């Protein structure tokens, strides 16, 4: 201790050295003694107990608190900033993913249209039209129809399209025996020639969320829809800042009374936040986040923007495997109309189901839905949003919901083809989010008919021939039905298999299979073609169906007929009507396989064609789609169409992005096309395709059967002046079906065509002026004079008709002297 050294100490020092006062303070206390004194002695010198400890600790605590507050502030600030950024990105970027929709071709109704076959009422209902029970003569709203004995009145909806928009039209149709006899437009009663029924949705390109949505603008939705939603979901929406303490308190009270969750306390803003950003978990953390984000949304955006986002986001039920979001989509789904056309009762129903769209679905639980709708109406009245009269009128109305129209699953092969045909710029992300409208060529009625015909036909074959049936989906008999309008190339129906869900492989457009005898018309067309000079054959010619051997790199090729026989000297018509292989093979050699291949290409075949002798018998592998195109060229008088699945791609608020113009080009001369068609008409009349007639089809029909080796591929391609339809049947892993194409494919074709156009086919195959009709002797092929014992009418390109002449006395070769031969008066007049 320093005091022993003799140094002077001041009073302060002395005071510092003095022992600290006891905690009780005051100098009057006696010095501690005993244990207390020992404790004091053991204390470090210079420390003052009590006050000093509190101040330092307090300072430390404050510092820690400040640090924690700072760190907490930084963390929560970052959190808030993150939430704020999320909010801004969603609101200011693309807010909604709107799947692009594919629309069918519109249906054209006109006097003479077969409304019965068309199932007019079913078509209207699928488009959301509803039957009206009003009295005859009373007003009929848009989207409604009314039957009365032999008349149907339909108020057709307007529909938008860049080139083919239609206004709404109130039409009365007189129908007799299923046929529309007359159409008049009200109110004037003016007769109309044709009206369009708006397209149906064929499908849509969804993202993984499979949400269906049709965006609305707040200014366009009726005020009573907004009122209905606010009255039941958030009556103080206009005044709160994102959360509503009163509502929360009210909900807590209600839930306590109910002993469970009876009422929600979320505002519209909170609901929007929950749907937009958050997962559906129910935790405190999520609730807190939801509340904070709601405040941020309200701070950044005005009420109209929030409300509009809500109207487009809210979940309102399911349609099949897709979710219905937004009031725009719900209006179509429930009432078949646009949101701007909703009535008070309809608006109340939409507001009513928000609480639980599946439980309160008006389709499944109409009573519950009605009860809640009326509750909403009552709330609207209580809050002064509607008057007594409106309330009373709305509460007695039925729900009036439209029939659910689920996306037709059997059009998915067609949708895939359409997607492949779209320009590359329309990739997945664009299609799944940009809300494009793609107007397709698909005729849904024909599509359904094609799907039905294929399924019925294949099932029928499996019943009749149990050996070809299989439980293994990969080994089941498969098929394709494809129908196209030859003049325009529009693909009207396409069914690429039995079950898209099991196999997405499109057997119409992606499969390549041997065509067998379906290829033969290309051989005959090449032989009939006069574009390079005189044709090799005419319809009056004869072919040799005699044994043939051709050397090939893989050895000699000896074609055989189906009946293993040779038929000798046969007329061209008979050769193709009976599908004689040897005659066709010989003809192919005479024409030249390269010319045959060239003809096939000109008609529309795009696949590689091996230049081998067997090409004439259909050993090349082709798709039904390109086969359809080639036959469409024949049906269209030699004009080759462009097969397409869509016509317009339209972007909302922008207009048409892409348009497929009607186009075709001259591929072969009309005379060749006509003569080839004439041969194929004979196939249907008398040949391997005669089952078509046997099944009751009438009118101009041409076609060709095709059966490959071991009956692995069964084809029938048939066409009328207005439709080309291809049917293919086979196994995906090629093996024998064991049935002829006549028995297997033709019934499916007839089944489809009967549904499509009826039993009586319309139109004519146009005969070009250069093709003339002559009477010929069927035995010799010579021109038949009037005295010739036999004759039949045959067609020839002018200048190619036979020169030899058949008379009663025999065949007179061209150039024979006429002197000394007896001729009849008719022979004299005809100059023979």
């Amino acid at each position, binding site marked *: 201790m320093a005091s022993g050294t003799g140094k002077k100490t001041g009073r302060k020092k002395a005071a510092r050295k003095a022992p600290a006062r006891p905690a009780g303070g005051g100098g009057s206390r006696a010095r501690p003694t005993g244990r207390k004194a020992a404790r004091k002695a053991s204390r470090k010198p210079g420390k003052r107990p009590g006050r000093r400890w509190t101040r330092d600790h307090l300072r430390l605590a404050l510092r820690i608190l400040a640090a924690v507050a700072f760190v907490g502030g930084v963390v929560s600030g970052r959190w808030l900033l993150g939430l704020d950024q999320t909010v801004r990105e969603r609101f200011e970027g693309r807010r909604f993913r709107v799947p692009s929709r594919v629309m069918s071709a519109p249906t*054209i109704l006109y*006097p003479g249209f077969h409304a019965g076959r068309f199932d007019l009422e079913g078509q209207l209902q699928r488009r959301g039209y509803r039957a009206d029970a009003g009295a005859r003569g009373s007003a009929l709203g848009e989207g409604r129809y009314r039957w009365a004995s032999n008349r149907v009145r339909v108020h057709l909806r307007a529909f938008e399209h860049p080139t083919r928009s239609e206004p709404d039209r109130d039409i009365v149709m007189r129908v007799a025996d299923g046929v529309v006899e007359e159409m008049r437009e009200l109110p004037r009663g003016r007769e*109309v020639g044709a009206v369009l029924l708006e397209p149906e949705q064929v499908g849509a390109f969804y993202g993984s969320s499979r949400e269906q949505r049709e965006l609305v603008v707040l200014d366009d939705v009726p005020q009573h829809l907004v009122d209905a939603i606010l009255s039941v979901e958030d009556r103080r929406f206009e005044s709160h800042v994102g959360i509503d303490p009163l509502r929360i308190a009210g909900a807590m009270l209600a839930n306590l009374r109910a002993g469970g969750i009876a009422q929600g306390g979320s505002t519209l803003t909170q609901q929007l936040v929950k749907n937009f950003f958050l997962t559906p978990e129910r935790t405190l953390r999520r609730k807190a986040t939801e509340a904070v984000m709601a405040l941020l949304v309200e701070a950044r955006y005005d009420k109209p923007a929030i409300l509009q986002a809500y109207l487009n986001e809210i979940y309102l039920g399911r349609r099949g495997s897709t979710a219905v979001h937004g009031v725009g989509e719900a209006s179509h789904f429930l009432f078949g109309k646009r949101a701007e056309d909703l009535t008070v009762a309809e608006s109340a129903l939409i507001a009513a189901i928000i609480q639980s769209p599946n439980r309160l679905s008006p389709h499944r639980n109409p009573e519950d839905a009605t009860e809640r709708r009326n509750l909403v109406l009552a709330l609207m009245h209580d809050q002064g949003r509607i008057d007594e009269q409106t309330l009373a009128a709305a509460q007695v109305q039925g729900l009036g919901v439209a029939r659910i129209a689920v996306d037709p699953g059997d059009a998915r092969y067609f949708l895939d083809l359409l997607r492949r045909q779209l320009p590359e710029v329309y990739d997945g992300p664009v299609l799944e989010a940009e809300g494009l409208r793609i107007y397709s060529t698909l005729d849904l009625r024909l599509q359904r008919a094609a799907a039905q015909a294929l399924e019925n036909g294949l099932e029928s074959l499996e019943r009749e021939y149990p050996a070809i049936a299989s439980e293994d989906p990969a080994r089941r008999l498969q098929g394709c039905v494809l129908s196209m309008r030859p003049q325009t190339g529009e693909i009207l129906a396409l069914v690429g298999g039995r079950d898209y869900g099991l196999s997405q492989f499109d057997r119409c457009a992606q499969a390549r299979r041997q065509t067998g005898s379906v290829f033969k018309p290309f051989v005959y067309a090449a032989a009939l073609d006069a574009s390079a000079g005189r044709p090799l054959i005419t319809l009056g010619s004869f072919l040799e169906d005699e044994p043939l051997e051709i050397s090939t790199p893989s050895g000699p090729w000896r074609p055989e007929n189906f009946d293993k026989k040779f038929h000798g000297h046969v007329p061209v018509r008979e050769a193709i009507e009976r599908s004689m292989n040897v005659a066709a093979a010989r003809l192919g050699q005479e024409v030249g396989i390269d010319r045959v291949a060239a003809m096939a290409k000109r008609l529309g075949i795009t696949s590689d064609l091996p230049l081998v002798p067997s090409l004439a018998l259909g050993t090349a592998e082709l798709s039904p789609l390109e086969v359809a195109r080639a036959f469409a060229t024949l049906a269209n008088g030699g004009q080759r169409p462009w097969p397409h699945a869509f016509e317009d791609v339209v972007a909302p608020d922008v207009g048409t992005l892409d348009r497929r*113009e009607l186009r*075709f080009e001259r591929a072969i001369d009309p005379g060749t096309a006509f003569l080839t068609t004439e041969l194929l008409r004979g196939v249907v009349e008398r040949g391997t395709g005669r089952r078509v007639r046997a099944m009751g089809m009438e009118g101009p029909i041409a076609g060709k059967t095709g059966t490959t080796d071991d009956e692995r591929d069964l084809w029938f391609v048939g066409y009328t002046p207005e439709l080309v339809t291809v049917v293919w049947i086979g196994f995906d892993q090629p093996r024998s079906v064991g049935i002829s194409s006549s028995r297997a494919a033709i019934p499916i074709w007839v089944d489809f065509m009967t549904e499509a156009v009826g039993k009586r086919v319309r*139109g*004519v195959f*146009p005969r070009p002026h250069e093709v003339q009709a002559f009477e010929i002797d069927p035995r010799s092929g010579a021109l038949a004079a009037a005295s010739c014992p036999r004759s039949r009418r045959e067609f020839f390109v002018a200048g190619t008709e036979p020169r030899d002449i058949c008379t009663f006395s025999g065949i007179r070769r061209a150039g024979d002297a006429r002197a000394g031969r007896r001729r009849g008066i008719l022979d004299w007049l005809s100059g023979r």
Partner: protein
Amino acid sequence: MRVGDLGRLALIAVAAVLGACSTLPGLGGQDPIRISELVEQGDPARRASQRLLVEGLEADIAGAQARAKGRYERAIQIDPTNPYAYLTVARFEVDRRNADQARAFLDQTYALFDAEGGMPPRVEAHFIGLESAVAAIAGDRTAAARGFEQARRLAPGVWGDAYLTAEELL
């Protein structure tokens, strides 16, 4: 030449004269065809198709070309074998100077009239005139001039200016 041959020739000559008389321009006072005259002719699909052509021509006159084209295409969809539909589209394509398209549609027009027994005389002027217009667009002035002259003779009131308007076809 033998007597029989002479007699035959005489018969043929008389028939030829009679046939030629029926096709001489101006004889019979026939004006070229207007689509609006055809709306009651043919089967239901044909009539509906003709009516759509009329609507299309009206839209064309009003300047709504896209709508007009849509109507014409609908007319073809309803009745793909209606030659008047292709003729109308050919006129539309000539207006847009699409020679290739116009030619294809005229080709189809001819084939379809052929299938129905031949091109009516009242259609001939339009057909020849439009063919000439296609030749003019393609740069073949000689063929165009020749064709326009023929069309003018057949229908001076319409083809006097070497142009067919939508009003003149309606």
